[in-house]
């Protein structure tokens, strides 16, 4: 990014509380400015302002129905925002559709797992590398050299990705035959295979037991370190959120009610109120 473009970005509603020191001097990977969507008369998300640093793990928490998944759907253009701007790597993604947003650098997982069930584990990952392959359909049918070369490279990369979760042995298993936890992990790998700069995880630890969750935390950290990407995750497991997130945004009724470090959030009275209800005046 040139100095000029960077200078243009800085004055935009920046949230220092959500930028780690490590990323402070780099341009943020994602900036949401007054982002919102209205369904009929209902403001599902309103004035969503969050900035995420280049290698930061950010948590998006809030009670059920607060609009967390709606934010993901806005970022990935499943819904077109009714107002506000999303800047991905400094570029407005207003005109892009879901597939183009992915190619621009946002990959996601789904709260209700959406794998390609009848395909193998390896195919689930290699299909996500499709946009990085170049051989054409006739080359694939005639099996020309470029087909073998690229398929080979993608196979190796898929195996490398599978090794993150020690799933190499499952490469040829059908995706819908995997146990629940493995399906969640495969979704993360499939998202990673698209080479994102921002990874959105929608309740990655849902349905996992404490030891699996602990392992997942390590994995998310190591994914961030290895691939040098930013992670934005929705999670109800507070242990996970408070442990690995460097910044947290709390959503309630479509509004961000608090932003900050895990310590800030834990002591924020508004957050406590949103989760536990208002304390009676003594």
């Amino acid at each position, binding site marked *: 990014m040139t100095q000029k473009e960077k200078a243009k970005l800085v004055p935009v509603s920046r949230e220092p509380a959500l930028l780690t020191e490590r990323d402070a001097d780099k341009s943020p990977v994602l900036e949401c400015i007054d982002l919102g969507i209205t369904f009929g008369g209902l403001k599902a998300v309103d004035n969503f302002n969050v900035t995420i640093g280049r290698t930061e793990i950010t948590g998006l928490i809030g009670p059920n129905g607060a609009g967390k998944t709606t934010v993901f759907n806005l970022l*990935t253009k*499943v819904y077109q925002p009714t107002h506000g701007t999303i800047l991905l790597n400094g570029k407005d993604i207003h005109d892009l*559709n*879901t*597939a*183009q947003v*992915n*190619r621009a650098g946002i*990959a*996601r997982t*789904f709260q209700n797992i*959406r*794998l*390609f*069930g*009848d*395909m*193998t584990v*390896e*195919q*689930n990952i*290699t*299909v*996500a590398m*499709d*946009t990085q*392959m170049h*051989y054409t*359909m006739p080359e*694939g*049918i*005639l*099996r020309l050299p470029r*087909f073998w070369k*690229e*398929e*080979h490279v993608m*196979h190796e990369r898929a195996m490398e990705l599978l090794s993150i979760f020690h799933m190499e042995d499952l*490469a*040829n298993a059908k995706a819908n035959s995997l146990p629940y936890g493995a399906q969640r992990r495969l979704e993360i790998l*499939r*998202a990673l*295979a*698209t080479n994102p700069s921002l990874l959105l995880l929608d309740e990655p630890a849902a349905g996992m037991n404490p030891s699996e969750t602990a392992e997942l935390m390590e994995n998310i950290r190591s994914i961030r370190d290895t691939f040098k990407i930013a992670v934005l995750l929705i999670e109800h497991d507070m242990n996970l959120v408070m442990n690995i997130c460097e910044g947290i945004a709390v959503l309630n009724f479509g509004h961000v009610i608090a932003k900050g470090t895990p310590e800030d959030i834990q002591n924020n009275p508004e957050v406590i109120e949103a989760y536990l209800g208002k304390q009676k005046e003594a």
Partner: protein
Amino acid sequence: MTQKMNKFNSLKKTTKVDFATYLGVIVVFIITTILQNNGSLKRSAIGLLVPICCYMSMAVSLNLTVGILGELSLGHAGFMSVGAFSGIVASQSLMGAIPNAPVRLAISMVVGAIFAAIVGLLIGTPVLRLQGDYLAIVTLAFGEIIKELINCLIIGYDENGLHFIFNPAGNKTVDDLGLSASGTAIIKGAQGATGTATIATFTAGFILVMITLIVVLNLTRSRAGRAIMAIRDNRIAAQAIGLNLTKYKLMAFVTSAALAGAAGALYGLNYSSLQATKFNFNLSILILVFVVLGGLGNIWGSLIAAAALTILPEALRQFADFRMLIYAIVLIFVMLATNNPQVKAFFQKLLPHHRASAEKED
């Protein structure tokens, strides 16, 4: 050694299964040819050989749309029709220029494939925005429209080239084409194509089946095939990993149409007389029955079902009036049997054995 085996294991395994399929088709072709040459096949059976190849190719290509793309198409006979009549026109008009029948047949099949692909592209671009039942109904309508359009077509050929009349009112005849004395009419409206030189051969049918298999199987094992299957399994996730849905859906649909067009051209050139009404809704359903009976996405199943269900009505001729009744009953029993868990388990037991023996051969 094991390291080497691990590398690329999955692609190798599917390649092996594919080669077993090719080998099976080749063996059946050789046996049939030998039987045909030493006279042990009945005349009626020999007459079925080319149609069986056409139906096999139709079934495998429809499997690409229904089994692999996962969209129900009820207009596959429409593409076959486009291929058949464009193939007939190509063959008849090139008769002077290319006297060599096999070469002309090959060119006609390519022409049939190209025309069917163009129609597939024109139909697919708007239609593939729909899904499920809606797509099925629109493709059904498309098949009927093609049938009616070709019914209105009068085409003739003389030394000045091709002459067309589009005759929706039904008041024009071949005489209106203005052909010179040496010219011939190729397609005569509702009468269809008559006087076609029947240049289709069983060998051509075999080659068509092989090409169809190679195209469909290799497409399925390539990035395009993976993308198409991903769209079938989960549209939303397919979009979320950056796949261009329209592109890949069209790719599957047009490839399927082109293969049906080539099969149609071969089919058309197997009969001296052919009417557009042959390619009606019933034929589309028949091909769909091949695909469903053989198993969605199962290429082997499509081949066997197409062959068996083409032979069956002929083999049942001795039952005269009860022929179609028995055909229907057999169909129901086969459907029940193939869905039976015990039968499935039996075939599952067979399969690993089959694979192990295939690996030994290497």
